[in-house]
């Protein structure tokens, strides 16, 4: 059928292709431009940020803004804070939500469906709603201005339910034969999970890992509530605190700090974007 397409049809399809590219390029602007602008503006002198007419590239390149990222705040330490918190949260989230997701999908136990429904319902409680009792509890334990709430909440709190859900959907389609064969070989139920089901769950692990990492690395509200001293800040909070000694915003420095938090993640994403996107696409979330 395709082989005897007339040249008119081929021309039409070329027009369609060109239109499509134009459309896609136009659609890219709001997605790409802000990040590019943020990146290039961090090399502008502060007074060029609002220059009229606005430009993407600096007229005068300077590292002054970026240099102050590190002197105005303990930025490297803050980077380390965000990084280690995100890694702990990611590793623990993968492990715990995989266990829970597996059990919800494959193991019968009392009240399984009721408990799962409760989990889904809890997903609807935003952190903002429960922040007051959690704040008072954290206070009672003397853990304000520590990283504990920023680690414990995302791992165990209601936001983790999505991860459990993803693993549950994944394990629902995990072939029973693998499990049964292993059990005939005398592998325990837990062994089946840790040695067979979990290692084979790469797409779900990727999806949950990526989402947990991004959520933790970008955490803002909890950090705003619980953290107080710059040494303990995570990056999201740090970016908002670039003011000079007179309370004036250090615009180019702020954008420089923002770029430094974004660019490494973007580079990792660009390198691994195929696995990244496929991992997310293959979650149960597609329905």
């Amino acid at each position: 059928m395709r082989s005897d397409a007339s040249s008119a049809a081929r021309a039409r399809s070329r027009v369609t292709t060109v239109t499509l590219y134009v459309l896609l390029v136009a659609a890219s602007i709001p997605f790409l431009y802000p990040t590019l602008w943020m990146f290039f503006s961090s090399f502008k002198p502060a007074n060029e940020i609002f220059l009229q007419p606005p430009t993407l590239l600096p007229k005068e390149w300077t590292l002054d803004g970026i240099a102050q990222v590190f002197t105005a705040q303990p930025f490297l330490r803050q980077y380390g804070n965000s990084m280690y918190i995100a890694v702990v949260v990611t590793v623990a989230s993968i492990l715990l939500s995989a266990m829970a997701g597996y059990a919800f999908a494959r193991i019968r136990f009392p009240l399984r469906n009721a408990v799962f429904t409760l989990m889904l319902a809890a997903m609807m409680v935003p952190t903002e709603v429960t922040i007051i009792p959690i704040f008072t509890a954290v206070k009672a334990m003397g853990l304000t201005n520590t990283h504990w709430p920023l680690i414990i909440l995302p791992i165990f709190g209601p936001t983790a339910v999505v991860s459990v859900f993803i693993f549950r959907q994944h394990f629902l389609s995990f072939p029973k034969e693998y499990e049964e064969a292993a059990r005939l070989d005398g592998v325990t139920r837990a062994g089946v999970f840790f040695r067979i089901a979990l290692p084979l769950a790469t797409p779900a692990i990727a999806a949950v890992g990526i989402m947990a990492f991004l959520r933790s690395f970008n955490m803002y509200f909890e950090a705003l509530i619980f953290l107080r001293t710059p040494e303990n800040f995570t990056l999201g909070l740090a970016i908002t605190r670039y003011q000079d000694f007179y309370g004036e915003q250090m615009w180019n420095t702020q954008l420089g700090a923002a770029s430094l938090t974004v660019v490494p993640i973007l580079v990792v994403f660009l390198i691994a974007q195929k696995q990244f996107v496929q991992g997310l696409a293959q979650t149960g979330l597609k329905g």
Partner: protein
Amino acid sequence: MRATRSRRAAIALTGVLALCLSACGGGDTGESGPADLKMALWSSNKDHLALLKKVGDAYVAEHRDEVASITFEPVTNPDYIAGLTTQIAGGDVPDLAWIPEASGPEFVDAGVLHDVGSTLKGADGYDLDDILPAALAPWQDEKGGVYAYPFSNSPFALYVNEDLLKAAGQPDVAALVGTPDYTWKTIADIAAATNSKTKAVGLNVPTFNPTNWSAVTMLGSAWGAAPWSEDGSTCAFTSPEMIDYLTWYQKQMSRGAIPAISGKAEPAAFASGDVAFSVAQLSQSGSLDSSFTWSFLPLPAGPKGYHPIVGQAGVSVLERGGHKEQAAAFLAHLTNPTNAELLAQFFPPPRKSLLNVKTLSQAAPKLSPEAIQSAIIDVVPEASVKPQHPVLSQFSDKVRAGLDSVWSGGDVKAAVTGICEQISPTLKG
């Protein structure tokens, strides 16, 4: 193979957890023995902190049996009061804290602040009477309690970019000071003319954003406008004076004398050289260099004459801080005449004895003696602070929401009527 992989994962996990345990374990506070004092402050300026630390360390060296250490912790929340109250509510109560004047009554009312009156009075060579009555008043109650020392008593003034005015062909404003022509009206006219000729910002209040609305309403005192009655029980946004003032302000915005506001984006800084006039405090002079000629003038007069305003930060001892006595004793040391003079290089002192050109030249070495005399020494003794209210935080957001329509050119009368409807129940308490 699988086994080794999971073992490796387990090792990694343990390592990560151990890392976390070591990194996020909080330090514990010893209750007995000499106290470790903490002071929360707004400034994170390295020079400020270094000077305070110097005073603190010297004090610790002399009082080892009472105080083991003194740390100065900036509260970096852009909303300082939200940061501090959250910290206090979170049980992490500093021993001393820097409290902006607007929140003073609220803190006193909540019983958060410790009465340091007797400690200050009793301290050797302290001379409480040396402190300007107008400066101390916001921190006193009827019973004679003193809840803070007015640590920084910094007058608002008008910064003028003379180069810019000259370029725009405008008259020399400094020459107007002391004449009947030195009024907001004149300044606004010049600002508007400069704006239309040079595209530069006319008149700027750099600390103003919608949340910090009082940075604008305070200037209304030159119109006789106050946001609420003296006793705080009645809303006065609907007073003819306030309506006059806000209408004037709005008109200046619409004709370009005062820049329009945009969300939280701030207008250009005076230091950039693109601003003709800026209403700011003394400390701002530190950020200026000689890249353009500028002068520092007292605030102009409004329809109701001159009304100098100071921005204050008190330093208080917190009731729940745990080391009240040691903290109060340190406050008395930190703010005695000798140290107040030392601190004057950053924080304008509230002491009569220090209100002289010599001391204040340290505070603002870039200012001329004349500027110090006319814009500080002459105005500070009678200057008032921004309007205060004991439940300000409960209705501040409502005022913010109501005033937004004024800033964007809406009907002033409707806006202030709405504000009074919204906040009156709270004011009456």
